[in-house]
């Protein structure tokens, strides 16, 4: 494979927007996708991620703004003149052509006469060399998906756009194809822009994830950064699960903010608070369920100093193998979720038991209190884990 390494291969969107009548699908958006990166647009359906992708492909005309590929302004170019290719949701393979001709389609349209060698190499890359003369409907879902990738990649596009390419596959195959796509991306070095509603998929595959909500980019960063330092409750809930406590700022000074919540005190590192905190003001304190330790109330004395602590009563517990998931009722927050690794299980930790929840203050994050703590809870992580 040839590596396309011209330096100005970034995708740049400046002020790009799309409106349909009175409905705004994408609010003015600035986004830069660096050359060679694996970039994911993550969000629930209707958040504008597919529209954004289609504007890059040229299948949708932006209402405002500019699309740059490198230094070239491609906003006015029709799709067939853009050096990008798309892997469509449900693949859109040509049913009347065999696999070979499907993959050769782009090369032939650009006037190449001898395509045999390239097509065969590409089919080898996606491990479909044997299937070249079959029709698309004779292949399984996973194989069709690989044909769609091959058909796009063979043109050496500057950018490969993937529109929920794994949506039609079952869970196991999806995991397999995620690794496969990641492998191919590393091998060919082409910029991938991947649209998905599956947070786990986005986190496994992408270098950079842009979380979209209601036509806006809510937050952009590496998967770990988004997970550890969400700046809105939407991001905090959409990527994994979060517990929130509404707290009042008691004092601030140095590197930490001290907060009051339900009679107790909590410590939050200043650097991890994305909301303006002034003494007496409100802040939403967030903590991930796996960061929390659970100790029976009788052993409360053994908890080391300097940890954030909250008391409560176990409302529910479910054993799921690697961990046990507890729901704890506490005065500051009902339905506090705690995931405890199954290392040394305390037999006293059953529903009804009084417990102390404690965690390292460094794992606390602070958000603006003026937003719903339930944003992004629907159709996100909860659904994925149920499936």
């Amino acid at each position, binding site marked *: 494979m040839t590596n396309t390494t011209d330096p100005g291969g970034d995708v740049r969107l400046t002020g790009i927007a799309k409106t349909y009548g009175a409905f705004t699908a994408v609010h003015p958006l600035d986004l830069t996708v660096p050359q060679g990166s694996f970039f994911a647009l993550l969000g629930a359906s209707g958040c504008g991620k597919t529209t954004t992708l289609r504007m890059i492909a040229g299948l949708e005309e932006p209402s405002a703004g500019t699309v740059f590929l490198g230094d070239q302004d491609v906003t006015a170019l029709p799709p067939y003149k853009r050096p990008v290719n798309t892997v469509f949701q449900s693949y859109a393979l040509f049913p009347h052509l065999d696999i070979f001709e499907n993959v050769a389609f782009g090369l032939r*349209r650009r006037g190449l006469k001898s395509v045999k060698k390239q097509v065969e190499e590409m089919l080898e890359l996606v491990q479909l060399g044997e299937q070249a003369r079959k029709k698309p409907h004779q292949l399984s879902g996973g194989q069709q998906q690989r044909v769609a990738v091959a*058909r796009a990649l063979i043109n050496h596009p500057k950018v490969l756009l993937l529109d929920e390419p794994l949506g039609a596959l079952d869970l196991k195959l999806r995991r397999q194809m995620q690794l496969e796509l990641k492998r191919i991306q590393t091998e060919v070095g082409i910029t991938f822009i991947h649209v998905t509603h599956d947070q786990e998929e986005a986190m496994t595959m992408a270098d950079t994830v842009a979380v979209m909500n209601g036509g806006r980019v809510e937050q952009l960063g590496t998967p770990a950064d988004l997970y550890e330092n969400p700046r809105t409750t939407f991001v905090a809930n959409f990527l994994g699960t979060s517990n929130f406590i509404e707290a009042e700022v008691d004092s601030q000074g140095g590197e930490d903010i001290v907060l009051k919540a339900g009679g107790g005190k909590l410590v939050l590192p200043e650097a991890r608070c994305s909301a303006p905190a002034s003494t007496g003001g409100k802040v939403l304190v967030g903590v991930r369920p796996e960061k929390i330790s659970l100790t029976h109330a009788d052993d409360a004395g053994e908890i080391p100093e300097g940890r954030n602590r909250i008391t409560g009563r176990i409302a529910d517990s479910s054993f799921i193998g690697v961990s046990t998931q507890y729901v704890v009722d506490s005065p500051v927050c009902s339905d506090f979720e705690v995931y405890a690794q199954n290392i040394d299980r305390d037999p006293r930790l059953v529903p009804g038991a009084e417990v102390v929840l404690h965690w390292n203050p460094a794992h606390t994050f602070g958000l603006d209190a003026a937003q719903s703590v339930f944003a992004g809870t629907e159709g996100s992580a909860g659904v994925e884990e149920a499936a």
Partner: protein
Amino acid sequence: MSTLTEAPPPLAPDAPGPKPPRRRGRLTPYWLLLPGILWLLVFFALPMIYQASTSVQTGSLEEGYEVTWHFATYWDALSAYWPQFVRSVLYAGTATVLCLLLGYPLAYLIAFRAGRWRNLIMILVIAPFFTSFLIRTLAWKTILADGGPVVGALNSLHVLDVTSWLGLTAGDRVLATPLAVICGLTYNFLPFMILPLYTSLERIDGRLHEAAGDLYARPWTTFRKVTFPLSMPGVVSGTLLTFIPAAGDYVNADLLGSTDTRMVGNVIQTQFLRVLDYPTAAALSFILMAAILLMVTFYIRRSGTEDLV
């Protein structure tokens, strides 16, 4: 069917086993087929046999006809009326091509571009069926009348000079010329072309057009390489639904044509109803049927749509 064949186990100990419902379930398809089979037997198979026997009879109207296995009737009919056969194929073929050229863009428009006008245009396509075939063809007689606006316009645009040179019209007339007959055939069979074309175009996934555009195909290339091949089932059924009835048609040639534009349908009609030479008429019918069957078989083989349907 599965609900009948997989009956739940009987609850009562003396209940009959699952055999009776199963037997009834197995026969159901045949019962459903029976009316259709009877219909075909009475109105298709029997007349065909009767026709076949008629075509090998000799005799006269006064003395009565008798089956004498006189196959020479076929040869005689063919050698006497081959010009009408050739004319039928030419007129029907031209009308079919014209229907395809007129119908494809319209079907494409309805399927992909009409938006909320889709239903209205569909109604306009079907609307002519609400009046009689005969009335509509007679209306064309008025439209193409000598000295009428259409002929006047064609004349001043010098279109008639071209068509006269092609042998389709004669002088300043359109009526009673091949052009009039072909126009009538095209008009009358156009909906039979548009409907199957529309059905097959409408089934094409719009994302295939996007995919082709994404893979560097210009709009015209997308049409040639994706849309048209995928609409082949519609093209084949549309052309068959147009060509087959047009080749046997006699109304258009009768009302809009002259003695020089007689098609095989007119000959059969005359032989049956005026000359009362039943064997020749029956033989002509069979020759027409065989010719159409041959052409259609060849056409379907060539178009290679078996795996698309």
